[in-house]
Protein backbone atom coordinates (compact mmCIF):
# COMPACT_ATOMS: atom_id res chain seq x y z
CA UNK A 1 0.00 0.00 0.00
CA UNK A 2 1.41 3.38 -1.02
CA UNK A 3 1.99 6.19 1.45
CA UNK A 4 -0.62 8.37 -0.31
CA UNK A 5 -3.23 5.66 -0.06
CA UNK A 6 -2.47 5.01 3.61
CA UNK A 7 -2.70 8.72 4.41
CA UNK A 8 -6.02 9.06 2.62
CA UNK A 9 -7.36 6.02 4.46
CA UNK A 10 -6.20 7.49 7.76
CA UNK A 11 -7.91 10.80 6.95
CA UNK A 12 -11.07 8.87 6.18
CA UNK A 13 -10.90 7.02 9.50
CA UNK A 14 -10.38 10.29 11.39
CA UNK A 15 -13.37 11.95 9.75
CA UNK A 16 -15.54 8.88 10.23
CA UNK A 17 -14.64 8.73 13.92
CA UNK A 18 -15.36 12.45 14.41
CA UNK A 19 -18.78 11.95 12.79
CA UNK A 20 -19.55 9.01 15.08
CA UNK A 21 -18.57 10.90 18.23
CA UNK A 22 -20.44 14.06 17.25
CA UNK A 23 -23.45 11.95 16.25
CA UNK A 24 -23.53 10.42 19.76
CA UNK A 25 -23.14 13.86 21.34
CA UNK A 26 -25.96 15.29 19.24
CA UNK A 27 -28.26 12.43 20.27
CA UNK A 28 -28.29 13.97 23.76
CA UNK A 29 -27.69 17.60 22.74
CA UNK A 30 -29.90 18.16 19.66
CA UNK A 31 -29.95 21.96 20.16
CA UNK A 32 -26.16 22.46 20.09
CA UNK A 33 -25.66 24.52 16.94
CA UNK A 34 -21.88 24.47 16.99
CA UNK A 35 -21.74 20.68 17.29
CA UNK A 36 -24.32 20.34 14.53
CA UNK A 37 -22.39 22.69 12.23
CA UNK A 38 -19.18 20.75 12.83
CA UNK A 39 -20.96 17.44 12.28
CA UNK A 40 -22.26 18.64 8.92
CA UNK A 41 -18.82 19.94 7.95
CA UNK A 42 -17.16 16.65 8.78
CA UNK A 43 -19.92 14.64 7.12
CA UNK A 44 -19.40 16.64 3.91
CA UNK A 45 -15.64 16.19 4.10
CA UNK A 46 -16.12 12.48 4.76
CA UNK A 47 -18.30 12.09 1.68
CA UNK A 48 -15.69 13.90 -0.43
CA UNK A 49 -12.75 11.88 0.88
CA UNK A 50 -14.72 8.64 0.42
CA UNK A 51 -15.48 9.56 -3.17
CA UNK A 52 -11.86 10.47 -3.80
CA UNK A 53 -10.59 7.25 -2.23
CA UNK A 54 -13.01 5.04 -4.12
CA UNK A 55 -12.25 6.71 -7.44
CA UNK A 56 -8.54 6.09 -6.89
CA UNK A 57 -8.44 2.75 -5.08
CA UNK A 58 -11.78 1.03 -5.45
CA UNK A 59 -14.83 0.42 -3.26
CA UNK A 60 -14.81 0.85 0.50
CA UNK A 61 -18.08 -1.00 1.01
CA UNK A 62 -19.70 -3.91 -0.79
CA UNK A 63 -23.23 -5.24 -1.40
CA UNK A 64 -24.26 -2.18 -3.40
CA UNK A 65 -22.94 0.54 -1.10
CA UNK A 66 -20.13 1.46 -3.54
CA UNK A 67 -19.64 1.29 -7.29
CA UNK A 68 -16.88 -0.74 -8.90
CA UNK A 69 -14.85 -0.26 -12.04
CA UNK A 70 -14.04 -3.16 -14.34
CA UNK A 71 -12.85 -5.72 -13.42
CA UNK A 72 -14.63 -6.31 -10.08
CA UNK A 73 -12.52 -4.38 -7.59
CA UNK A 74 -13.75 -5.57 -4.22
CA UNK A 75 -11.42 -8.53 -4.07
CA UNK A 76 -8.44 -6.43 -5.09
CA UNK A 77 -8.28 -4.24 -1.98
CA UNK A 78 -5.91 -5.37 0.77
CA UNK A 79 -7.67 -6.84 3.81
CA UNK A 80 -7.11 -4.92 7.05
CA UNK A 81 -4.53 -7.44 8.25
CA UNK A 82 -2.60 -7.04 5.03
CA UNK A 83 -2.03 -3.33 5.58
CA UNK A 84 1.49 -2.64 6.74
CA UNK A 85 2.81 0.64 8.14
Amino acid at each position, binding site marked *: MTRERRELL*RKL*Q*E*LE*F*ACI*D*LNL*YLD*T*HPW*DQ*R*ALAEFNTYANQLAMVKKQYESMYGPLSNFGQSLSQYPWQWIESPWPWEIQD
Partner: protein
Amino acid sequence: MKKGENKVFHDDCKCPGQSPYPYGNVDQLRDMLAKAYVLYQVYCMRYPLDKALEKGTLFPELEKPWPPYYYEETVKN
Protein backbone atom coordinates in the same frame (compact mmCIF):
# COMPACT_ATOMS: atom_id res chain seq x y z
CA MET B 1 -50.22 10.57 57.53
CA LYS B 2 -47.11 11.03 59.64
CA LYS B 3 -43.60 10.34 58.46
CA GLY B 4 -42.94 6.67 58.89
CA GLU B 5 -46.57 5.61 58.36
CA ASN B 6 -46.37 5.46 54.58
CA LYS B 7 -46.74 1.69 54.14
CA VAL B 8 -45.50 -0.37 51.22
CA PHE B 9 -48.31 -1.86 49.10
CA HIS B 10 -48.30 -5.06 47.09
CA ASP B 11 -48.43 -4.37 43.35
CA ASP B 12 -51.26 -6.80 42.60
CA CYS B 13 -53.78 -6.54 45.49
CA LYS B 14 -53.08 -2.92 46.66
CA CYS B 15 -53.40 -3.95 50.30
CA PRO B 16 -50.88 -2.82 52.90
CA GLY B 17 -48.47 -5.71 53.09
CA GLN B 18 -45.28 -6.96 54.52
CA SER B 19 -42.36 -4.99 53.16
CA PRO B 20 -39.51 -6.99 51.65
CA TYR B 21 -37.20 -4.36 53.13
CA PRO B 22 -36.09 -4.40 56.77
CA TYR B 23 -37.51 -0.99 57.71
CA GLY B 24 -40.93 -1.60 56.26
CA ASN B 25 -42.05 1.84 55.04
CA VAL B 26 -41.45 4.02 52.03
CA ASP B 27 -40.03 7.05 53.87
CA GLN B 28 -37.30 5.02 55.44
CA LEU B 29 -36.70 3.24 52.17
CA ARG B 30 -36.09 6.62 50.50
CA ASP B 31 -33.50 7.42 53.14
CA MET B 32 -31.61 4.26 52.22
CA LEU B 33 -31.28 4.90 48.50
CA ALA B 34 -28.41 6.76 46.87
CA LYS B 35 -28.99 9.26 44.09
CA ALA B 36 -26.68 9.49 41.10
CA TYR B 37 -25.96 12.88 39.59
CA VAL B 38 -24.21 13.12 36.25
CA LEU B 39 -22.97 16.49 35.04
CA TYR B 40 -24.42 17.62 31.72
CA GLN B 41 -21.73 17.68 29.05
CA VAL B 42 -21.10 21.08 27.49
CA TYR B 43 -19.19 21.16 24.22
CA CYS B 44 -16.39 23.67 24.66
CA MET B 45 -13.28 22.07 23.17
CA ARG B 46 -12.26 19.05 21.16
CA TYR B 47 -9.15 17.15 20.17
CA PRO B 48 -7.73 17.52 16.66
CA LEU B 49 -9.12 14.69 14.54
CA ASP B 50 -5.90 12.66 14.40
CA LYS B 51 -5.53 12.78 18.17
CA ALA B 52 -9.22 12.01 18.73
CA LEU B 53 -8.87 8.78 16.77
CA GLU B 54 -5.90 7.75 18.93
CA LYS B 55 -7.61 8.70 22.20
CA GLY B 56 -10.92 7.09 21.32
CA THR B 57 -12.91 10.26 21.95
CA LEU B 58 -13.30 13.69 20.43
CA PHE B 59 -13.93 15.25 23.83
CA PRO B 60 -10.97 15.72 26.23
CA GLU B 61 -13.26 15.69 29.26
CA LEU B 62 -14.39 12.14 28.40
CA GLU B 63 -10.90 10.69 28.22
CA LYS B 64 -10.64 8.45 31.26
CA PRO B 65 -7.71 6.05 30.98
CA TRP B 66 -7.96 2.95 33.16
CA PRO B 67 -6.15 2.21 35.34
CA PRO B 68 -5.55 5.92 35.81
CA TYR B 69 -1.97 7.00 35.31
CA TYR B 70 -0.83 3.37 35.38
CA TYR B 71 1.91 4.07 32.88
CA GLU B 72 3.13 7.22 34.61
CA GLU B 73 6.56 6.42 36.02
CA THR B 74 6.21 9.00 38.79
CA VAL B 75 3.07 7.28 40.10
CA LYS B 76 4.39 3.73 39.72
CA ASN B 77 7.55 4.43 41.79
